[in-house]
């Protein structure tokens, strides 16, 4: 007789956190696909995560610390929090975000030389505390990383990458010179849950169209849910709960 042992609550939590060993992560991912009951349990927990953080925001704990008048020991404080940051980065390592392209010509990023070039540039675990975004352009047999102010042209093939230091909501969006937004990584106008770990390459590269003047990329991240509103980008940029990384590329000659 075959028996399926109930998955313990702690193991479920570690699955959601992406902390289980690779073999167990793979087993549970497969089970999530094939077992409706298990999938429903996972879905419920993921939805519950958002609700709990909304109902019990970090500010409540901050307030209690303030009321207690607690202050970190200067000797251990910084080292401790650096340990916290390191533990978060090391402990979590699975990326499970949903990708959705829209209004964009996409292509499979299966060009080996481009991938090798990007990997050589630093496919290591992040060490800092900030989210990072990279924009790459295919050039012949390889790829070059673009920075703010670099020049791009119609037809250039672009690949986006990102990394985050801890589990958070995230969204990758671009805005061209025609005022058109493209959602590169999002669920509609909502962010997706991002897991920390190595620099992650989006599964699709895309080719720039003939929009003039510029192509600007935004990576928005936050521990709170947020919504993208095309008509009010400034509000999102000014939202203190939402961090952003911006790379603006020039499109000269038009």
């Amino acid at each position, binding site marked *: 007789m075959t028996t399926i042992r109930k998955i313990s609550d702690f193991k479920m939590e570690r699955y959601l956190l992406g902390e289980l060993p690779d073999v167990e992560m793979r087993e549970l991912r497969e089970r999530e696909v094939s077992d409706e009951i298990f999938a429903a349990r996972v879905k419920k927990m993921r939805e519950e995560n958002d609700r709990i953080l909304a109902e019990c925001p970090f500010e409540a704990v901050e307030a209690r610390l303030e009321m207690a008048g607690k202050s*970190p020991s200067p000797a251990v404080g910084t080292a401790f929090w650096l340990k916290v940051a390191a533990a978060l980065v090391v402990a979590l390592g699975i990326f499970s975000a949903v990708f959705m392209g829209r209004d964009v010509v996409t292509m499979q990023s299966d060009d080996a030389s481009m991938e090798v070039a990007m990997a050589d540039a630093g496919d290591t675990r992040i060490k800092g505390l900030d989210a990072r975004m990279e924009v790459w352009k295919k050039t012949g047999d390889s790829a070059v990383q673009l920075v703010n102010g670099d020049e791009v042209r119609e037809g250039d093939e672009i690949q986006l990458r990102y990394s985050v230091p801890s589990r958070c909501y995230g969204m990758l969006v671009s805005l061209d010179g025609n005022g058109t937004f493209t959602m590169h990584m999002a669920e509609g106008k909502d962010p997706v849950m991002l897991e920390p770990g190595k620099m992650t390459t989006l599964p699709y590269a895309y080719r720039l169209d003939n929009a003039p003047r510029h192509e600007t990329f935004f990576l928005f991240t936050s521990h709170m849910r947020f919504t993208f509103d095309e008509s009010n980008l400034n509000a999102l940029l000014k939202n203190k709960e939402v961090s952003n990384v911006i790379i603006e590329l020039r499109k000269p000659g038009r």
Partner: protein
Amino acid sequence: MKVDNQAEQKAFSELYGTYAPMVYRRCLSLLGDDAEAKDMMQDVFLRIYDRKDSLDLSQPSSLLWNTATRLCLNRIRDKKRRGLDVDSSDTLLNIACADDEMDGYEARGLLAKIFSKEQESTRTIAVLHYVDGMTLEETAGMVGLSVSGVRKRLRTLQARIKDLEVKR
């Protein structure tokens, strides 16, 4: 908040943002009350903050899970002693109210690193094994003891609580 610099505040905020839902669910499963679980969840993070200089942070999830377990057991025991209603199973109630020599050490301040794996409360170990259904091996992994060490600790508790049998 008296966390002096932004990096520290951000790190604590990220720890909370990552693990608070897990801690809440743990507290809810042991306490059986939503409001109490939310309150306890905050207590767990405050406790972590208080003891930051003696923490073993190599496995944040285990640390937070065990801390939540121990604080919930204390809450259950306190409520029982005050004659308040406790919405817990008999097994959990028995474990919560059992004498635990490790608790005494903490109260007397004899353990410099109360959160370190070696000093994890026997009651916490019992909950992992008897209530959560973890095997001895899994329990040992959670608390950083050998299997024989876990078995020995459980037997000492067994002597105080009837109906507990160390399983495989």
